[in-house]
């Protein structure tokens, strides 16, 4: 008769432990650092896609305040063509999280991130307060899935691009991107 509470407690403990382990496995730690980059909480309200990872780099390390937001978009790509043109980057790269009004500066370039091909493009973001910032949009794909990133800040576009690509090329981000694209 006394076994019942023990069984129940064991099951609850087992569930809690596995839940905690799963959380540890997938949830980013707020103070986790990737070089000069500090991971911060995803700052945008919920939309159609789950939140991704957000990072900030300070003046000391990056020359200016820079922020990068990156997330997978599963099932959102032309499965055969991938990210074939700059229009696709305009559509998917999450620039609209910061402003609905953005203007490309120039045609984009081919890029490869975490071994996935895609495109990168520079923009001017017109913010609601009237200010104007440079931004970089990135979209790469594998099969029918996308990984998108957007970088913005007070740096100029080439500097933003360099900083964003440097972050996305780190071993930690590559490992995370590959896992995220597999839903892990």
């Amino acid at each position, binding site marked *: 008769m006394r076994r019942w509470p023990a069984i129940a407690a064991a099951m609850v403990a087992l569930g809690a432990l596995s839940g905690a382990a799963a959380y540890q496995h997938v949830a980013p730690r707020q103070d986790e650092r990737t070089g000069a980059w500090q991971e911060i909480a995803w700052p945008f309200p919920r939309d159609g896609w789950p939140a991704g990872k957000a990072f900030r780099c300070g003046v000391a390390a990056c020359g200016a305040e820079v922020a990068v937001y990156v997330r997978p978009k599963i099932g959102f790509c032309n*499965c055969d063509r991938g990210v074939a043109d700059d229009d696709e980057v305009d559509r998917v790269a999450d620039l609209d999280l910061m402003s609905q009004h953005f203007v490309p500066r120039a045609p984009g370039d081919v890029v490869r991130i975490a071994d996935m091909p895609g495109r990168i493009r520079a923009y001017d973001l017109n913010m609601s307060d009237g200010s104007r910032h440079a931004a970089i949009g990135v979209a790469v794909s594998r099969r029918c899935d996308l990984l998108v990133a957007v970088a913005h800040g007070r740096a100029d576009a080439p500097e933003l691009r360099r900083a964003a690509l440097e972050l996305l090329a780190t071993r930690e981000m590559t490992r995370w991107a590959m896992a995220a694209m597999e839903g892990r």
Partner: protein
Amino acid sequence: MSGRLKLAASFSILFLAYPGIASAQQQVIGAPPEERNMKLVGASDLQARSGYQPTIHHQGDRWIAYIGHHGGSDDIPAPVNPQTGKAEPNGTSIVDVTDPAQPKYLRHLPGQEGKYESGGAQMVRICDGKALPKGDRNAVYMLRTFGGEAHEIWNVADPANPVLITRIAGLKDTHKNWWECDTGIAFLVSGAPDWRTRRMTQVYDLSDPAHPQKIRDFGLPGQEPGSTGAVPTELHGPISTGPSGNRVYFGYGTNKGGFLQIVDREKLLNGPKEPTADNLRLPEIARLAMSAFNGAHTTFPMPGMPIAEFAKDKDGKTRDIVMIVDEAILNECNEPRQMVWFADITVENRPMMISSYTVPEATGSFCERGGRFGAHSSNESMAPVYYKKMAFISFFNAGVRALDIRDPYHPVEVGYFIPSITAATDKRCVKIDGKDRCRVAIQTNNVETDERGYVYIVDRANTGLHILELTGPARVVAGIQ
């Protein structure tokens, strides 16, 4: 054992047996179909091609089913056509269903090379030449997509020997067109190369199918050439109520950020045509935004529905309703649930969602069965046999669901049919720890009805065409003897 110990033991057994319960829901070859108030009348394997849009046409004294196909699969990019002995890229199947118990496969018309959504000839609409203002009275015209690159019109008066009439090419994508047979006006879902979206509308006058006349391009402000900033969700498909209704209902999005756009047809056809933001805005009456979690695959209008509950009300006894069907796109529930929504658009500039419907997942452990689970499309026939009374929804691994929609504020499921899988049914995979884990399940993709009341469902996973009829209480709802 004490009572509580027995209870704990039972829970433990249930816990350990759970994977067994889930696997018991897996479909197996040879098992009977699952059904309630619907039964199988006949079937065709459609040469094991991935089925998309079926359209059933009463052609003389025959009934012909025209069925669009997706491209082939990785394993079989171009299935062999037993009638020709050749491997052919998936295109259009033409099947005589005059006797629905004995469908006769007449012809496979190959489509664009390419796999899955990149090839085939997914969509098909039919108009009689005698209905079109400038058509050949002896012709029957089939409008179909040719992969993503073109729209085609064929004369299928002899459905076993179609003849190509017209091709509208140079596109970057196509999808679910609408063609008004009495006017010839067609709303072609295309990807014009210079537009910023994969899919938008090209309005054509196809009253003389041999000489298509383009009327205009149409889309949402932000999609037009030269625009900047955020790009609105791409079009999935329109449905027009023609000159009498003077409305076109556009559905945007598939499984995300969808909305219904209500457009004044006359202003769309005759308004300023230059694709500027202002000109694109002009014909729009209203938009109904959906959750970011859902898209609008099908927007099926049902104007003037009498609502029994409101019969004694001095105003608002009848309501204009649009049924909106989302599309599930990811396998094994890896997305928010895609389902069916009913919008009351009686006050057009204040459309409001009034009800919803989904298949209860637990009734079939559908998230564990394999493949997609969720809505995809509805029948689009407006024939009196079912119009404003019943709707049929394809729900991927949950088969087809028959809804009593006479009170659209409270839609009720009255029947379903989930076909058996066969050796042709293709697998569907998800990534588990970086590796593919695949399962085989029915993927009822699209559904259509004919004026006789037969229900036609086709399978995305290559299981073919199933022709069904209602039984029992579901027949009573439709008023079928």
